[in-house]
């Protein structure tokens, strides 16, 4: 009797296991890796008056087997051993992507996408930018850490033109920003999450600008978006001012001209504090920055520490002032998010002036201290 009971239990357990295998095999969503085209980068351009031109970069799975530093092949006729680029145009982004799907032998999978590039023409069209950002936000495949960049010209040209040793533009861009996450004079990473946060608050954001030259991608300045539309570009010196104020960018090189020679300072530590007070019916933004760093080069013998500190202080103040002035007077866009800082730190003042007018009524006061902690291995 007991043996029979044990037998029945075993059969029951076996039946449950077999049923589980059937039910939990995920057969509806079964999809083999070789049947999928993993998209690493996507370009969104404007075609005609209101059509989207979408380009997707899909690496060949074989590139994951090749060792780093191997021979990189060029791209001919949109096909290469590394990746292929497919382009199509349509009225909406995802319907266009479905059309691309219809042309390829693999189902496009956006789960591993690293980069999305917005072309220059589309950035000048407010409604198309809104639609593009909304499409990216709503899509469940696209994760929020995808890097968003702008292109000078067409996004498609960047994807097609890249022939570097990182195999695909998506991989290159992801690696570039990983390397420069805490330090950059030139540009900084903007993810979909960052852009959504910026746009939900003020309708403005800033995007790294990508260019392609001789098959290599370069980042040159930033594109400023105000009210979902491109209003201008910032050169590297202007971006430097913004980077100095930002708390998450630690390592910034600051170079000052001292007695006719350029002296670079490697910043090791930076503390930023921003306060707001009312001054003569204007909002005074007091940016206090304490910088510590090492002098990297000084060819004229012993480093004159106190004079150099004074020179660095003036240089940093000037950089910050120039950046603020450019954003306020030229672009009329609060790129540095100072109005948001004011809302967080001095809500009374913020409510008094209002979200729309506070940046226009803002004046800057810098309070910079620079300490030279090291001069390398010699004095």
């Amino acid at each position: 009797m007991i043996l029979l009971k044990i037998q029945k239990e075993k059969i029951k357990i076996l039946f449950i296991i077999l049923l589980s295998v059937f039910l939990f095999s995920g057969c509806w969503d079964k999809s083999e890796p070789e049947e999928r085209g993993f998209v690493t980068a996507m370009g969104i351009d404007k075609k005609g008056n209101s059509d989207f031109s979408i380009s997707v970069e899909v690496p060949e799975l074989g590139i994951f087997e090749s060792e780093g530093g191997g021979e990189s092949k060029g791209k001919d006729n949109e096909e290469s051993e590394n990746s292929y680029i497919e382009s199509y145009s349509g009225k909406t982004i995802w319907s266009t992507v479905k059309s691309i799907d219809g042309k390829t032998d693999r189902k496009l999978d956006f789960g591993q996408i690293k980069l999305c590039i917005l072309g220059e023409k589309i950035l000048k069209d407010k409604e198309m930018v809104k639609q593009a950002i909304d499409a990216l936000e709503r899509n469940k495949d696209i994760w929020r850490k995808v890097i968003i960049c702008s292109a000078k010209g067409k996004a498609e040209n960047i994807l097609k033109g890249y022939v570097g040793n990182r195999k695909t533009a998506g991989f290159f861009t992801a690696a570039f920003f990983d390397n420069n996450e805490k330090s950059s004079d030139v540009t900084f990473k903007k993810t979909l999450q960052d852009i959504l946060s910026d746009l939900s608050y003020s309708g403005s954001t800033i995007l790294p600008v990508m260019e392609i030259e001789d098959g290599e991608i370069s980042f040159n300045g930033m594109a400023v978006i105000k009210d979902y539309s491109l209003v201008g570009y910032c050169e590297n010196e202007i971006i430097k001012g913004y980077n100095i104020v930002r708390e998450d960018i630690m390592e910034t090189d600051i170079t000052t001209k001292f007695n006719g020679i350029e002296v670079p300072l490697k910043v090791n530590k930076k503390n930023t504090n921003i306060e707001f007070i009312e001054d003569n019916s204007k909002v005074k933004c007091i940016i206090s920055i304490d910088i510590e760093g090492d002098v990297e080069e000084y060819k004229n013998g012993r480093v004159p520490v106190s004079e150099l500190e004074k020179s660095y202080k003036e240089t940093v103040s000037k950089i910050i002032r120039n950046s603020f002035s450019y954003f306020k007077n030229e672009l009329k866009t609060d790129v540095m998010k100072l109005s948001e800082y004011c809302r967080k730190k001095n809500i009374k003042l913020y409510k008094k002036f209002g979200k729309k007018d506070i940046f226009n009524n803002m004046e800057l006061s810098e309070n910079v201290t620079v300490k030279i902690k090291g001069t390398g291995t010699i004095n």
Partner: protein
Amino acid sequence: MFSSKNKISVRQLQILLILDIFGMGVTFLPKKMVEFGGQNGWICVIIGVIFACICAWISASLAEKFPDDDFVTYAGKIVSKPIAIIITAGFVLKIIFSLSMELRIFSEIVKQTILFNTPSYAISFCMLIVGAYGALKGYEIRGRIAEILIFVIFIPMFIIFGFIASGADYTNLMPFFDTNNTEILYGGIFSLFTFSGIEFILFAYPYLKNKKTAKKESVKAVVFVGIIMILITVITIAKLGPFDIKNQIWPVLELMNTVDLPGTFLERQDAVVMSFWIMSVFIIVNAGVYFSCLLTKHTIKKGKNIWYVVIISAIIFSISLIPGDISEIINITDKIYMSFGAIYIFAIPFLLLIIAKIRKLGDSFENTERKN
């Protein structure tokens, strides 16, 4: 330990309470709290935790007065049997409807994050049959499963949230205390309903081996869950910002979408996190099916457990198919919270406790032990 007596320890009760309360509501809790309190929505959760502790204390105090009686029996002693049956029927309906919506929310979330093409009814069905099978096995088995699953659920969650917390911008919580106090209070009351599961304390006492410290430990369990919910809300607001959260349906899941675990080359760790959440949902489904069957059986007093489990599971599954889309699910869930939730988390236990005290009904556990 208590293998042939269907008894659990107080520690197991604590763990079961933690897992029963920590449900799908936490996925959209930050959004709701930001709607009430803006960047100070986390204060609403603190208020909710305080209310939840009071409700837990009331429920435990009531159950403690009748430590060996099931809910139907002692409610019958307090307010007469017909009224007790009506209250129990309401309880059963509340559990069934809440569980149906939880199950549906769970299947929609899984469909959105992992299984895009799988029908939501298939996901609900798979989870329901596993939970229902567990419910057949008794309270002690539930306790043992919970003792294992609590580590499997919470340790990875703490690790993931630790990474998210380290990269969050805590200035998004500023300005502090700049919100309408009335809205904060309403938010606190609303957040109380995400502690649905507290009422299971009312049914647990007959299954406890040692009832002496159960009240205190139940409140501690609620505090533990409350702290986790507060932390999740704070981290979500800090990471996503109060303006972005309002646009999202499930901001906590979007948060998982922003995790960048070091050392990985593949994206999308949200699917990994979902796998731990699935275990949490299993416990909730298991609890809902178990208690609704328990209450029904104690009322009808006939038939085998398996029939109650089968029939109630079928009802739960059918109801979970009714809502058409996510906004309808959230509407129904809100209505259940504001109606049944308010009555059964606070009003019914409070009224029963007051009536029992006025009528001097029920023994304390000391008297029961002396009698034994």
